[in-house]
């Protein structure tokens, strides 16, 4: 089966994202904020939906880029939808992709590419049932909204709960490309390990296209994340 095209294959250029940033700052920033975290930023009182992180994956994961483009064109900017040009909407979409760490390449995003390129879901849990006990190794990271994330994480593996905390299970592991939001990390004293490479076990939780992990154990396996 031929792999589908995703935004991990570069679909825009850095110059295009820069143009998109200008449009964003003129039309979008008042509601969605400079860091694109919008209403997820509890101190700013912003109204716009977050356009980065897990919320972006929830809203646009497992969709084509055209879904993002069409949503913006239909509803945005708030109060004057459809008032930008198609090119400006496309450019803003590339800025949003850039802020979500999808790479820039050598060709600009066009409506045709937007209609074929997919924004991936959180991934890493394909084939696993909801609430499967899993483990992963990645970089423990707290985002600006104080959510705990496992970034650059390897794919989730089914694990036996009894093996979770054993020394044998706590191998160094390798890192990968996935990001998982960690639920109830606060019960496992995460602060001292912020920025460290950790092994996490817990129950996999699906929320729309996003996959999260409810933490049952959290162990440091390396001081540096190795990136």
């Amino acid at each position, binding site marked *: 089966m031929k792999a589908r095209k995703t935004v991990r294959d570069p679909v825009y250029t850095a110059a295009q994202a820069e143009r998109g940033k200008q449009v964003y700052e003129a039309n979008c920033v008042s509601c969605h904020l400079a860091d694109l975290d919008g209403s*997820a930023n*509890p101190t700013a009182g912003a*109204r716009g939906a977050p356009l980065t992180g897990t919320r972006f994956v*929830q809203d646009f994961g497992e969709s084509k880029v055209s879904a993002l483009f069409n949503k913006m064109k239909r509803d945005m900017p708030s109060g004057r939808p459809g008032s930008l040009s198609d090119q400006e909407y496309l450019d803003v979409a590339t800025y949003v992709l850039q802020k979500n760490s999808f790479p820039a390449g050598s060709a600009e995003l066009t409506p045709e590419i937007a209609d074929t390129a997919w924004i991936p879901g959180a991934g890493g849990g394909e084939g696993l049932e909801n609430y499967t006990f899993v483990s992963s190794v990645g970089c423990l990271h707290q985002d600006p909204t104080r*959510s705990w994330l496992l970034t650059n994480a390897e794919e989730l593996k089914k694990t036996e709960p009894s093996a979770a905390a054993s020394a044998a299970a706590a191998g160094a592991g390798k890192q990968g490309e996935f990001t998982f939001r960690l*639920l109830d990390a606060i*019960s496992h004293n995460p602060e001292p390990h912020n920025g460290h490479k950790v092994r996490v076990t817990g129950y996999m939780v699906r929320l729309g296209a996003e996959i999260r992990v*409810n933490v049952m154990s959290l162990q440091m396996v390396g001081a540096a994340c190795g990136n």
Partner: protein
Amino acid sequence: MTLKLSRREMIETLGGGVGLVGLAGVFAGLSRSDVKAAGLGNYAGPALPAKAKHVIMLYMNGGPSQLDMFDPKPALYKYAGQRPNAVDLRTERTTGGLLPSPFEFKRYGRNGVEVSELLPQLASVIDDVCVIRSMYTFNPTHTPGRALFHTGSVLATRPSMGSWISYGLGSENENIPSFIALGSNGSGPQTRSAFLPTEYQGVGFQINDPDPEKIIPNLRNKQVDAAAQRADMDALLGLNQNYSKSFGADTFLEGRIKSMETAYRMQFEALDLFDIRKEPESIREEYGNTVFGTGCLLARRLVEAGVRYVECDYPGGQIWDDHRDVNDNLRKRCPDMDQAAAALIRDLKRRGKLDETLVVWGGEFGRTPVSESGSGRDHNPYGYTMFVAGGGFKGGIAYGATDEFGFKAEQNRVSIHDLHATLLHQLGMDHTKLTYRYAGRDFRLTDVFGEVVKDILV
């Protein structure tokens, strides 16, 4: 024109049946402070030190899910899909195994109260919010549950809390009803005065359009000017007085007359008061351009104008009744509720009104930790969450606790009657002394129940 009336004279006038109406004709010419002084309460018990003067009830019809908003239960993941013995409580419908919440909880405020990612704005004001995680009530079905929530009884014949409080404390502004329900049709337990005098019935307004002419249709009499209306009213009042002399005092007639007087006087104040478009754009943005945002902002304006009790219903009827697709539904529904409720608390505090206003949030019950239809939650009267902000309630605390799965209130249990008793206490009334004699006995909002929950008060 000046009018000098002693409190005694005023009470005598009231006691004389419909005699009050003779005063009403001159109320439109009184200053605000005179009118304020005219607000007479009926509470006859010992005067407790009142912290609050007003209540804003944010009612989430249908029973919102405490497990996804205020009461995190990590144990649900471990037993997802299973039904341990500890959760063997009877549910209203057929339910299956435990359904964990997929939402992230973080700690907020000086005491680290856990609030879900669905409510970032309420989380930001949590230091002014008393979260009660150990609420319980006595019926798992909406209609009796709603009646319990609002009237303290499952029966369809008891007055609502708003009516009791208006009856007890009287009016602060004779130009508008003392009990207003926004987003309500003004019937049912939310607004019912039942056997209390009719003037304490909650008056319902639909607020889907913020234009005050649409909120209060036909308020302006376009055919007859104020003086002519007054003459009409006085003629009618004369007839009613004759009736009263012949047949004796009639509280229902008196209530009806007072309501007509209020309606007459509303012409002069209400259109302005109900017009949220007079608020600065920044304030309207803060509440959100939504029906619930309109309701919360209007509630603040009404309370500032002296309305005693405002119920503001989240729009859409019994919409928090998430028997299926609870996750998707909450993600769609919470943002505007969160924004408006938090803006209300923030705004009241900025204006120095939060201390004297009780902002109460909740539904008739909560929801089960066990799943219904695989993706929903059933009704749960055994344990659920409500919150109160302001009015002398401690902020930044989570009081009480449910069991490890969030099914049943276990620690520091607070019944709906306990909450009613505590709200009345903060309004300066002993809930056992706020009574009304009807059908041969004294009735109370709390019936024979209710304990003031002192631990959650400043």
